[in-house]
């Protein structure tokens, strides 16, 4: 029977995996080892700042095992969304780790690199040509927003990965990629059904999260056939059930029946999930439906200021009873004190114990907490102004004379000295839009370098 086996070691490169599970996966003679390295979930900071949310040593450890296995067994290794966000800074960070490993291990292999960061000028031109549309509920885009963006990436589809594999890359390091792209590209090249390949990639991209018990730091094996695919964990302590696999299909998605991606949608209305054996689930009927025009999802983040935070606790019931009015009074005092300088800042008091987690979505009437956690959050156009606002709000709140106060030594319990933390630059997502493209590959230029010979 014609089969294509894909080994997914972990949910995110750097999240780790047990060597035992990985070896069990290699024993199944996979045709591909692939891993997703990123996500927008950790928020806009990492894209904006150009840094990884995974740790360098942890990423290096995972890559060493994966590339070593790939080289020894002549299996391609494909990494998607390098460095967590897949912009140029992230790609170069991850590339440096691979080159360092190649030097240490004396590896010599063709390494394909696919870029996914788009220039602001290009995006601006496309915007002016009406080739960008918003993804509800993201706000409409403007030229000013594009110019203000720090970095913009496009999510490549499997075509861009196929193009570099066709050029002979043994290891592929891709910038921002639609998660299933790196798991499905080589199978689509081998002639397998695109809908099944992408759906299998969608389940594999989170490693053993689709198993029971679920884990983001363990391996999952996918076996693609002509009319179905089978997923199974490689750790004897886990199993896949029809519910665990089907449930993963709806994870982080709005509509589990229709999953939009580059160039079309994955239509799961006719998908069936059948228990193959006690550990494995067989999935069939998933279809890829190409759309009339090919679209790529864009992601961008812009810097909105610099942050300083102060963390404190409050145990005085008299103060807790009037915390809202105290916060407002402190806010007014800060505003009044610096009015002559015209500072622009955002000052927020996040009160844990009083809607600190759910904010306006909180259905419970609050006020029953015997202690409160207070996080004073100041964001301003410079770090100095953020420091000033946070420091002044903190000292004002510490000594604020609210009605009925008996604890005149201070209103806040600080767990740390210094009490204020400079958190640096703050970013917002400001582009989350679709770009219409004529060609799914040209947007993502690639190159192949020979490791060990790069100088």
């Amino acid at each position, binding site marked *: 029977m014609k089969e294509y086996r894909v080994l997914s070691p972990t949910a995110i490169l750097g999240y780790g995996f047990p060597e035992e599970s990985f070896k069990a996966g290699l024993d199944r003679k996979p045709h591909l080892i692939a891993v997703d390295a990123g996500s927008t*979930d950790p928020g806009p900071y990492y894209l904006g700042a150009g840094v990884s949310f995974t740790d360098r040593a942890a990423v290096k450890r995972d890559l060493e095992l994966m590339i070593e296995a790939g080289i020894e067994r002549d299996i391609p290794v494909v990494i998607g969304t390098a460095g967590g966000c897949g912009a140029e800074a992230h790609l170069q960070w991850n590339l440096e780790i691979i080159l360092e490993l190649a030097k240490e291990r004396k590896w010599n292999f063709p390494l394909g690199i696919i870029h996914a960061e788009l220039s602001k000028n290009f995006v601006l031109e496309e915007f002016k040509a009406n080739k960008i549309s918003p993804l509800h509920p993201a706000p409409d885009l403007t030229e000013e927003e594009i110019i203000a963006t720090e970095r913009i990436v496009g999510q490549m589809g499997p075509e861009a990965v196929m193009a570099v594999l066709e050029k002979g890359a043994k290891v592929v390091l891709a910038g921002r990629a639609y998660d299933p792209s790196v798991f499905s590209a080589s199978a689509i090249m081998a002639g397998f059904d695109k809908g099944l390949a992408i759906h299998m990639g969608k389940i594999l991209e989170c490693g053993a999260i689709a198993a029971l018990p679920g884990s983001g730091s363990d391996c999952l094996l996918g076996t693609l056939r002509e009319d179905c695919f089978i997923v199974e964990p490689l750790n004897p302590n886990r199993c896949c059930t029809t519910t665990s696999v089907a449930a993963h299909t709806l994870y982080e998605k709005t509509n589990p029946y229709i999953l939009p991606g580059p160039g079309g949608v994955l239509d799961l209305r006719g998908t069936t999930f059948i228990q193959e054996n006690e550990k494995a689930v067989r999935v069939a009927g998933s279809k890829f439906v190409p759309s009339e025009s090919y679209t790529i999802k864009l992601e961008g983040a812009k810097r909105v200021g610099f942050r300083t935070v102060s963390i404190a606790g409050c145990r005085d019931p008299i103060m807790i009873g009037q915390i809202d009015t105290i916060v407002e009074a402190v806010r007014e005092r800060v505003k009044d004190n610096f009015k002559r300088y015209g500072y622009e800042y*955002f000052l927020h008091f996040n009160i844990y114990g009083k809607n600190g*987690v759910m904010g306006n979505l909180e259905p419970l009437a609050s006020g029953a907490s015997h202690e409160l956690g207070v996080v004073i959050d100041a964001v301003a156009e410079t770090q100095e102004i953020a420091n000033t606002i946070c420091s002044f709000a903190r000292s004002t709140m510490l000594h604020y004379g609210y009605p009925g106060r008996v604890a005149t030594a201070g209103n806040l319990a600080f767990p740390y000295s210094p009490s204020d933390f400079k958190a640096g630059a703050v970013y917002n997502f400001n582009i989350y839009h679709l770009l219409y493209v004529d060609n799914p590959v040209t947007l993502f230029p690639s190159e192949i370098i020979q490791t060990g010979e790069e100088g």
Partner: protein
Amino acid sequence: MSKVKLPQLATVIRSKNSGPYELTLDVIFKDQESYEAACKARVINKTTIAELYGIQEDDVIGIVEFSPANAIKATIVRPYPSGALGETDVYGAQQHAPLLDLEVELN
């Protein structure tokens, strides 16, 4: 007729981002019977979600019943985009709690 709370029928009740602008709520029922009972009772609909979270029904993007997983999911507009100033839950992973109190009427 008897009333039970959602956790008695479900094995998973969770919230998570669906991209930076949406929050999605998943309820995975313990078996097909519980799932079908919940679907029949229309326990999770635009109105119940809007009431539980104090939002407009227009901000409930969709309710989907997904029988392969015995699951019902609801997706709402995030009150703030992930990581925006004033935001409190970047991953959106702790917004599920109101669902734990939802009551289901069983025949």
